[in-house]
Structure formats: C-alpha cells, structure tokens
C-alpha cells in the first residue's frame, strides 16, 4: 500500500455512496487509515449535501434560456454593427483633426479651400455648370455624411 493511496479506495468510496459497506470492507476500513478517512469524509459530505438539498430553489430554465438568447442577440448585433461604429469613429477623428488644422492655421486652410474651389471650377471651365454641380454634390455628400453620423451616434 502506498503512503497516500489504498487499492480499496474506490470500492470503499462506492460502498459508502451506495450505503453498502459489507463486513469485509468494514474490516479493511478498521485497519486502513486512508479508507477510514474516506469513510469519514464521504459520510460527512453526504450529510452536508443532504442538509442543503431542501433549501435549494432553482431559477426557471425558460427564463435562463430567454436571458441567454437575448444576450446572444445583443452580442450578434454588436458584432454586426462593429464596422459602422469603426467608420463613425474614424470619421469623427478625421473631423476633429481637420478642425484642429483649420483652427491652428486658418490662413493656410482658407488658401487651400480657395485653391480647391478654383481648381474644381477651372477644371470645368468649358462648362461652368458642371463645376457648380460637382461642388453642390460634394457639399450634399458631406452634409449627408454628417447627418448620418449624428443619427448613428444618437442611436
């Protein structure tokens, strides 16, 4: 017999659980320190289990199922809207950076805008309406993006 192991351990444990310790096993237990401990501990823990058994009140399985489904859907929604959130954050960061640049160097920013507008208009000098139309479309796109971003952020 090992110091911390007895060959009859499992049999003794099974017999205690089944409440069927026969005379042979009882005799073994009387002479084996390991098995005495097993019997003592197994009986004590079984007593502990039985004492708390009557106090156990379980939550409803349906409620847990519903809770888990709700959580799963929330997680799926968060996964699905992650790209939108990412684009929103990137857009917000770009606007903030542009704002900082505009505020720190107002003259340069103004020049850049004038150059951009002139270039856009001159590029379509043959037909000034195209230039104006492109500008209006650009402004409309920016406006839509801002409104869309605000809507997404609000929701």
């Amino acid at each position, binding site marked *: 017999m090992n110091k*911390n192991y007895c060959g009859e351990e499992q049999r003794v444990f099974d017999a205690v659980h089944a409440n069927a310790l026969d005379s042979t096993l009882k005799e073994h237990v009387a002479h084996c320190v390991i098995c005495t*401990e097993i019997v003592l501990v197994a009986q004590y*823990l*079984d007593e502990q289990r039985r004492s708390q*058994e009557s106090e156990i009140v379980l*939550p409803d399985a349906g409620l*847990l199922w519903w809770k888990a489904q709700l959580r799963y859907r929330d997680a799926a929604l968060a996964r699905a809207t992650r790209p939108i959130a990412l684009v929103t954050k990137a857009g917000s960061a770009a606007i903030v950076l542009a704002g900082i640049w505009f505020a720190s160097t107002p003259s340069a920013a103004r020049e850049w805008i004038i150059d951009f507008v002139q270039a856009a208009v001159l590029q379509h000098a043959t037909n000034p309406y195209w230039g104006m139309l492109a500008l209006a479309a650009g402004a409309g796109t920016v406006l839509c993006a801002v409104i869309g971003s605000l809507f997404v952020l609000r929701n």
Partner: protein
Amino acid sequence: MELIAPVPGAASESEEATNNRMDEDAFRIFYEKTSRSLLGYLWRVSGDRDLADDLLQEAYCRLLSVDLAATMGERETKSYLFRIATNLLHDHWRRQRRSLFTSIFASAGSDPQEPAIDQAARDPAPEAQTDLRSAFDQLKARERQLLWLAYVEGSSHKEIANSTGLRAGSIRLLLFRARKKLAGLLQDRGNRIRKVKP
C-alpha cells in the same frame, strides 16, 4: 444523449457545422440534470447562497453562448459547465481581493489568498468557532472544490482537472491532502464534542 443541436433557423449547412449551440429542449433536459448539483457546488464552495445563484445563471448563459464541439457528451458538457462556474467564482474572488486591497477598511492581517466563508463566523472566540462553522468551511477554497467534486459529484480525476483547471496528475495528491485535512478537522471536532459531553 445528443446534447448539441444547431441553432434554429441556421441559414446554411456550413453555418450549422460551426454553430453547435444547444437548442431549447436539450438545454431544459441538461439544466434539469445539472442545475441542482451545480448550485450545490457553488453554494458550498463559496459559502454564499446569493452569489451561488448569480453565478449559476451566468454559467448557464455563458454555456449557451459558446459553440460546443459536436462530439461533446453529457458528462463532458457538465464538466465544461463546472469549469465555467469555477472560473466565475475565481473571478469573483479576484475582484473581491482587489477591492479589499483598495478599501481603506481592509485589515492588514487578512489573507487575500484565502476567500473566507462566513467571515462573521471567523471573529467569535475560538471555542465558539467550531460550533458556528462547519469543518468544511475551514478548508481552503481549492480544497473545498476538490472534495466536493470528488465525494459529492463523484467526478473522476480527469473530470476534476477539467472542472478546476488543475493538472490531472496533481489531483490525486491534492485530493489526498484535502481529505486528510478535513478528516483531521472532523476527528478534532469529534474529540472536542466528546470532551464537552463525557
């Protein structure tokens, strides 16, 4: 018993192959079979009924949100559930330790490694302690886990290793030590009772 079933309304076969979450009927059967023992385990190891209730619900929710391997049987799924619950319990204790360190009321002598069961019962005079607290509550959390899983749940060493995250090879020795300690406490208590009632 087949525990795992694809999520109802799964769109395609390829999705079904990777989406092995329990369906409602399978969950109800599994819950019926395991919830009582899981609550008993959490309650007895933590010593806190409300905490055990919370962790039980969280453990099942987490189990339902993971894609289980299609080959997983009932015992393996139960073992996995106990692992989730054990991790939740450890997370709770970790948070408790952290708040203990930051709390201005933390006493310098308290041992942050050992989550106490029934802290109020630790304070009374030593002679009253044995009456108020069971021998089981005097063990370390890990010892309580090991003994409960082995002696109440009847788990094998491999299953205990899966549930606790310990190495399977070390379970026998740890269990031996925990059992010896509890047996010692029980014998001690028996002797004291005999002294009081000759």
